């Protein structure tokens, strides 16, 4: 008797969010990226439409990191301190779908660069690459509220993702997104209810659901990642169940979280029982990213190009071609 694959019928689907704008749309990107739109759980394409595949953004820091371990130095050593060159390398050499620019230098403790300086960095990176951009603030609430408006304006019409809106500080970034045509990243501290609350607050300000990406702050493998997985999975299930306020695509920060771990940093001399550091560290990042893929993450922000390559292969195995504008 032939086997009938049981198919779930879901009421809702993930929203589709387009990132980036080509010349025809008023921007200067050579292509746009669309994420989301899944009408079923990750990769079950026999069940329903999965119009877009997950994408990988490689992260670019505007401050040369002081303590990066060798594997990362090997990959980016020559471009540290030059965000534009770094971004270029991410796309041309390492095939990133997007670039995530983190304006760490704006932080009062890490350089305190001015909004104007940050805006200039953003302009340079926009010129250096044709892929869509994620622009993230420095994490200092008051500084970001000054920096992000100027940065947002410098990138006007490019439809970047701006990070991030949090429960008690969402108005400035939401306003920027609406004024300059960007997408907002709504952040929550690993709490599904707070995620929904932020989504409600931001949409009530006037931001459309198609202009929102969700982000749950998570740790890497071994540091609470299963809890993050559960939260993301529940969020995805809520979206498929029809909850419009949890239907946005999801983003996960993998690079900076996993490379913090001692498992990624300790050398063979320091931890001989853990084997060769290079493979170990790459796998630490790749396994974390793979986990999040299966939870439903649409955008992975990664660091090491070899880890990104492994994930790209995974995605290819599971998915349908990326939709292009």
């Amino acid at each position, binding site marked *: 008797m032939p086997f009938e694959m049981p198919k779930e019928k879901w009421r809702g689907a993930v929203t589709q969010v387009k990132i980036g704008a080509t010349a025809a749309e008023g921007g200067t990107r050579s292509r746009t990226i669309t994420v989301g739109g899944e009408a079923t759980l990750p990769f079950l394409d026999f069940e329903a439409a999965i119009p877009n595949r997950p994408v990988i953004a490689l992260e670019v820091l505007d401050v040369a990191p002081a303590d990066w371990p060798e594997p990362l130095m090997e990959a980016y050593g020559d471009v540290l301190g030059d965000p534009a060159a770094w971004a270029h390398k991410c796309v041309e050499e390492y095939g990133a779908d997007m670039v995530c620019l983190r304006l760490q230098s704006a932080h009062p403790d890490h350089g305190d660069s001015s909004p104007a300086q940050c805006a200039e960095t953003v302009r340079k990176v926009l010129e250096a690459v044709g892929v869509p951009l994620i622009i993230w603030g420095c994490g200092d609430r008051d500084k970001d509220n000054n920096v992000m408006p100027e940065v947002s304006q410098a990138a006007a019409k490019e439809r970047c993702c701006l990070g991030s809106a949090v429960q*008690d500080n969402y108005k400035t970034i939401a306003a920027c997104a609406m004024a300059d045509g960007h997408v907002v990243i709504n952040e929550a501290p690993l709490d599904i209810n707070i995620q929904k609350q932020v989504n*409600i607050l931001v949409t*009530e300000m006037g931001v459309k659901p198609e202009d929102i990406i969700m982000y749950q702050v998570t740790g890497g493998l071994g540091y609470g990642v299963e809890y993050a997985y559960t939260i993301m999975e529940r969020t995805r299930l809520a979206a498929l169940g029809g909850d419009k306020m949890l239907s946005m695509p999801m983003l996960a920060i993998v690079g900076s979280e996993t490379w913090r771990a001692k498992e990624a940093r300790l050398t063979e001399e320091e931890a001989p029982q853990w084997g060769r550091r290079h493979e170990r560290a790459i796998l630490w990042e790749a396994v974390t990213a793979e986990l999040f893929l299966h939870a439903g993450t649409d955008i992975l922000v990664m660091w090491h190009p070899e880890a990104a390559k492994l994930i790209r292969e995974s995605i290819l195995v599971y998915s349908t071609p990326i939709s292009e504008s």
Partner: protein
Amino acid sequence: MSLYRVTFEPGHRVVNVEEGTTLAQAAAAAGVRIAMSCGGQGVCGRCAVLLRSGPADGKGPWDAHEGNEQRWVLACQTAVKADIVVDVARAECIAAHLEEAVSDAHVRMLEEVPLGDGRPLVRTMTVHMSPPSVHDNVSDFSRLRRALRQLDPSLKSLTIDLKALQTLPGVLRRSDWQVNATVADLGDTARVIGVAPARVEAAAEPARPGAGPRRHAPSPVHGVAIDVGTSTVAVQIVDMTHAISLGVAVEHNAQARYGEDVISRIIFSEEHPTGLDDLRAAVLETINDLLEQVARSAGLRSRDIAAASIAGNTTMTSLLLGVEASAIRRAPHIPPASDLPVFTGGEVGLRMEPQGPVYLHPAVSGFVGGDITAGVLATGMDQTEQLSLLIDVGTNGEIVVGTSEWLTCCSCSAGPAFEGVGIEAGMHATRGAIEHIHYDAASDAVEYRVIGNAPPAGICGTGLLELLANLFQAGIIDRNGLFNESAPTKRLRRGDYQLEFLLVPQGENGAERDIVLTQADVEHLIRSKAAVHAGITFLLQAVGLRTEQVEKFYIAGAFGTHLDLTAAVAIGMVPEVPASRIEYAGNSSLRGACASLMSRTARDRVRHIARNMTYIELSGEPAFMEEYVASMFLPHTDLSRFPSAAGMEKAENHGPNRLVP
């Protein structure tokens, strides 16, 4: 050790204390009550007093305050080391609170005393016995017992207390074997606690022709129902013979000076050698003061009270009896006793008939006690097939759901925010408290009503509730409760540490200081309402039911009496249900205590309720925490639960807020 003289003004109360005694201890000794929310740990600041003269080892956060020439110190942290005069006028004294502060509706509700079933906690039974003879030579007590049993065959096991026995033979013979026996119902047995002649002696006036011997109508039997709340104690004296209320009074539980909540009081009992005694003495002081007051106003002496029916939560009951309560605050939160025996007034320490029975309502668990079992009794939710839910909105926030066939309960620890504790300008519902308040966005004006029409000194729970709903609807706070700095109001300003909203400026209507609502206050209130809502939702989910299925909601508590239903729904504390499904149960604990006083059936019901109620511990349940976080949003993260609130416009410039129920 040297003794120093401490004088408390105004009122000129003087006490001599040993060097090193704290001002708080001295105040207690002098009979001056000062609020100590944190139980004397020096963190809440409510015991701040002004030094008028004399040095002291003072500790207070105002020492370096600019422009503060006055010397404010924390009474709990300041030791006496010389003669000293202290001004407590502006300290937060826990003022006694009489009937004037209890709403009319509340008092009216309490004036109805349920009719008994013929077997109240204590009653007078009139018996006429034939005198003993050679053929009928049973003992005096056996004779009495036989007669009583004839009157009431249910009196299977009957004893007599020593005092009554001592006078029995004499009374029987003097009264020609016609006596009024006072019988107390102890549960499994009954006890004769007094005998008096039923028949008057030869009258001074000539008997009318044909008239039989004159008899004393037995005097009415008086009993008292007592609700021992964590914050407030309520006492109601009842003429049990005629089922009439003779008066109600409430007062702050003097135990509050040792801690505002049950946990801090238990800790106090653990950390001080005489802690348990002090706590017991404090609550007895409050109860006995109230007994005296109400008795006096009813034309009685408190000794005339023959029985007491007490409803209090598990900790309050334990502390009243001087029972060690430490196990209650530690997992698995075990109460000393659930089903208590009936004690005597003398043993318990109440100023009533010493041999009179004292009935204490049974507890269910460490955190759901006699006040709730009494409350369930009062609402009658244990007798109906209708699905009912009772919320006792107070510090402990107990919730009961069920029918006549099953009952479950939980305690959601709402916290005392709605009782005014932990709120900058918060206070109990006493004289000077703003109890109703309305903010009009269009005119940026605040209207309010103060209890007792006194100068506003602060704001109590009902006012806080209305205010929260109001500010949300007016767009002053967002769904998170955060102040909207761009709101069109002049009342929002930055205080020392945070944003605050000015309600009453100093000087208005005699207000002594600015009355504000701070950002932290809003957070506390939201947490409190979230706990209540989460408790309701969680408890219903735990038994597989939905809000829509509940046919009756009972809202009880000192706070619940004045509950503004629309405000409670607007902020998401209470689910959105048709108004016809909600009933205000007022002080359900007191009403239940009254019913138990009057009727054996009621007492049996309460025992059944306590034994059959299943307690669900919320603290171990992740689902509760989830629901709690989801509820910390105005009105709720799941807006579909509050359809009319979700569809409501914010009043920005529309004038008075409107919530269409």
